[in-house]
């Protein structure tokens, strides 16, 4: 077994989940390799210390008896009051909605501006090798915030709804002539 393989299997070795023969091979390697021998010892010590400090931190806190009683009461009556977070959802979803709508309108404005044919004389004169034109008709864009819980899953979504995006693009590599001539063709 190589040193690299020993390092790969270190978490399984420290938790004791390796098959006996794999464990024996690691220990056999460590007996002949001073670096890996130290590594295994340090990994085991670090695991013990980390578990100790996590347990120390966690076990020093306990649920307050009145909170336990409240939980039991809620579970036994089946009442499901909104949590502190749920109470905040009113103004919070409004904030999201407003932000979502603002971003949506900005994107739409940018899209229409990019697709609008440029006024005569503003672009390069002479032959144009490619021309793009578009018409966008959007009656409305609505941003909607949706919060939904399905079992263990929590859906947290911003949805943009629009009626239609009538978008037509022309790209003619051989197109020639002025912008007004091409507009007549359209």
């Amino acid at each position, binding site marked *: 077994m190589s*040193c*690299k393989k020993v*390092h*790969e299997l*270190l*978490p*399984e070795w420290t*938790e004791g*989940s390796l098959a006996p023969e794999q464990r024996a091979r690691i220990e056999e390697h460590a007996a002949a390799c001073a*670096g890996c021998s*130290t*590594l295994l010892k*340090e*990994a085991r010590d*670090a*695991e013990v*210390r*980390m*578990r100790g*400090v*996590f*347990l*120390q*931190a*966690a*076990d*020093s*806190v*306990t*649920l*307050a008896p009145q*909170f*336990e009683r*409240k*939980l*039991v009461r*809620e*579970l*036994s*009556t*089946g009442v*499901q009051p909104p*949590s*502190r*977070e749920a109470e*905040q959802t009113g103004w*919070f979803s409004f*904030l*999201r909605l407003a932000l979502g709508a603002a971003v949506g309108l900005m994107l739409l404005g940018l899209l229409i501006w990019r697709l609008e044919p440029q006024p005569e004389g503003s672009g390069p004169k002479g032959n144009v090798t490619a021309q793009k034109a578009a018409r966008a008709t959007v009656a409305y864009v609505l941003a909607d915030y949706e919060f939904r*819980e399905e*079992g*263990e*899953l*929590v859906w*947290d979504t911003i949805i943009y709804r629009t009626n239609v995006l009538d978008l037509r693009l022309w790209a003619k590599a051989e197109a020639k002539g002025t912008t007004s001539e091409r507009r007549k063709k359209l």
Partner: protein
Amino acid sequence: MDAERFVAALRGGDAEAARELVEAYGNRLFRSACLLCGNYADAEDLTQETFLQAMRSVERFRGDSNIYTWLHGILLNLTRHHHRKRKWLVFGADAGNEERAEQPEAGHEMDLEAGGLALAEGLKKLSQAHREILVLRYYEQMKIGDIAEHLRISKGTAKSRLFYAVEKLRKQVPAEMNLFRDGGTEEKMKVVRR
């Protein structure tokens, strides 16, 4: 607590089963929530919400799965959602409120001894993914395979995430805590990984 009793408690109407459920899992979930979010008030909310969510999802509980692992899965999802909301709150608040949104109220901070406090402070500075894997490994004492299953990631990802999480935590906790030795395991592993 067996699966049948657990389901009875979650269906409501059985005060004795509800009491057994809270006694069996309440504190353990609350402690895990404290490590995951760093303060009492949020941990209480998350514990309460975990039980209520479990009541709503009781039909999805398969009797053959471990009760605590199932409850802890709900807690993890709620914690992630809680952190996402917290980020939005910070984003929505003006600059003056930013500190307040990030820092829980002083009275709600976990009251711990030095080692525990340093750990809690260190954990708060890590990403949610790193905090989760450290809590699962060192508090829940899960094996790598179980962590991978619980987080729905591969074993390789779990190992690598754990390695980097430990490395990040090491930079956050004072050296005198002696959680890690200078030039110890992590340094040697880094040399091999290069």
